């Protein structure tokens, strides 16, 4: 890289990372006074306060439950959907893919508001059941589904259709054919979809905000915290989350580079 592009790259990354660095630095700030930007020595007290916060732990638990359920259900529905869509004729596939793309194009806030209207109508119909975990899980599955489908479709298109037919010719039932031939072929796409659904669900604020009722998820909890003017606990929370993400990415990277090595050794393309 030339010097100018090097400087430019450094400047952009400075812009991207400086706020995060400041956030992390101030999570260790000892100050208890009303300021987020006066440094008064190192301390871990915000971390202590954080772990005593019952609301935080509840919202963390809710977030994880929702993410796990939403990821699994949307991957299951999305996988079968992708297979069904690939078996459709061109016209039908086009129509279905348009519906699939719609929630990704539609602004999050409109998706959130429209789901809120639906859930409020349903809850009135069912005798004022309040929104909560149920509506959150349903809406998370809904916005995860398109991403799952889009990560599986290309794998299905790459797959040799003769494989499945061969399995059937050799006496496989359709179900066995799916589990023993199709699924292993499209597995990388399924895994990508699952991971994407999980992270999308954990990270979502806007749709959850409108469909949660009084239930708190982690992003909603963070939002409530930022509404109070001063709360260095957020800094501690950010630091922890950032650390966890770094760790996970590190592990995933090591795993994939191992896989690449492995598949190179066995002569198979990834």
């Amino acid at each position: 890289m030339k010097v100018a592009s090097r400087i430019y790259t450094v400047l952009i990354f400075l812009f991207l990372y400086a706020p995060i660095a400041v956030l992390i630095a101030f999570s260790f700030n000892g100050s208890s006074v009303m300021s987020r930007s006066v440094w008064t020595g190192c301390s871990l007290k915000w971390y202590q306060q954080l772990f005593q916060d019952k609301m935080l732990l509840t919202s963390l638990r809710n977030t994880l439950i929702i993410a796990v359920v939403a990821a699994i259900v949307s991957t299951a529905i999305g996988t079968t959907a992708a297979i069904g869509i690939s078996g459709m004729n061109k016209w039908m596939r086009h129509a279905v893919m348009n519906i699939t793309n719609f929630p990704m194009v539609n602004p999050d806030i409109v998706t959130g508001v429209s789901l809120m209207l639906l859930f409020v109508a349903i809850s009135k119909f069912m005798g004022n059941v309040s929104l909560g975990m149920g509506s959150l899980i349903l809406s998370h599955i809904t916005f995860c589904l398109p991403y799952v489908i889009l990560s599986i479709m290309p794998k299905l298109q790459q797959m040799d259709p003769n494989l499945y037919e061969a399995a059937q010719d050799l006496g496989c039932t359709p179900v066995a054919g799916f589990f023993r031939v199709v699924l292993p072929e499209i597995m990388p796409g399924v895994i990508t979809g699952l991971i994407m659904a999980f992270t999308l669900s954990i990270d979502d604020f806007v749709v959850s905000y409108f469909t949660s009722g009084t239930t708190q998820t982690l992003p909603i909890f963070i939002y409530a915290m930022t509404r109070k003017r001063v709360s260095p606990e957020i800094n501690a929370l950010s630091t922890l989350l950032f650390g966890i993400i770094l760790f996970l990415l590190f592990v995933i990277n090591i795993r994939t580079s191992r896989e690449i090595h492995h598949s190179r050794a066995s002569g198979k393309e990834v």
Partner: protein
Amino acid sequence: MKSKSAAFPYLVWMAIFIIVPTALVAIFAFTDRSGNFTLRNIESVGQYSNVFLRSIWLGAVATLICLILGYPLAYIISRAHARRQNVLIMLVMLPMWMNFLLRTYAWMTLLEDSGLINHALNFLGLPSVHMINTPGAVVLGMVYNYIPYMILPIYSVLTKIDPSVIEAAEDLGADGKTVFLRVTLPMSMPGIISGVTMVFVPAVSTFIISKMLGGGSNLLIGDLIDMQFLGSAYNPNLGSAISLVLMVLILICMGIMNEFDENGASEGGLMV
């Protein structure tokens, strides 16, 4: 595999959770509180045309800045060694893994009147600058949050450009500037288009960034909708009307962007 029926659960799901809710928004937009047909909601959206114009203006400015800042970086990264490319792209994506509320909150601490930037200015003997709760702060928040969505699709299109095309242009006597303007830039158009839509749509419809960095004085469309559904001005009918207008607005923008993308080959859209 000719198993169309496998998509059946999905189609039912999307009918219930996408089509019905969207229809509900439309129905609410055209009815009053007692459920009678009315055009009043849609008409009163007109009162908020200044909010719409502000949202579109700030969103467009943020998108343009993202493009101007992001394109060179995407270009630089696409020219780096393969190993370094992976590291740099990882670094672009990493902040996206942090919840955007936290990223926006970080800017709050930097920009506020007694914040870190003003502390630094005072320390250097310079006067404080009022930055938070201004339109500029909102644009900054948008650029900061959404610039990766600009860099990634442009980068993925740039890496797919066949180097021999560029060599051919050079062989035919084009200098660096001509190669860029007549070969690289036109060929990266699909990436630019998906980058622009991926930044503009969330920027126009945001309500958190304006709330946190814009104070109460820089209302955007998202804030209006939020106020009608969960805020003080509870009025789901008006809120639905505003949402409907926003949705139509976005779909029109997408349509226009797709027109630009004549080749129809916008593969840069989804990176992951």
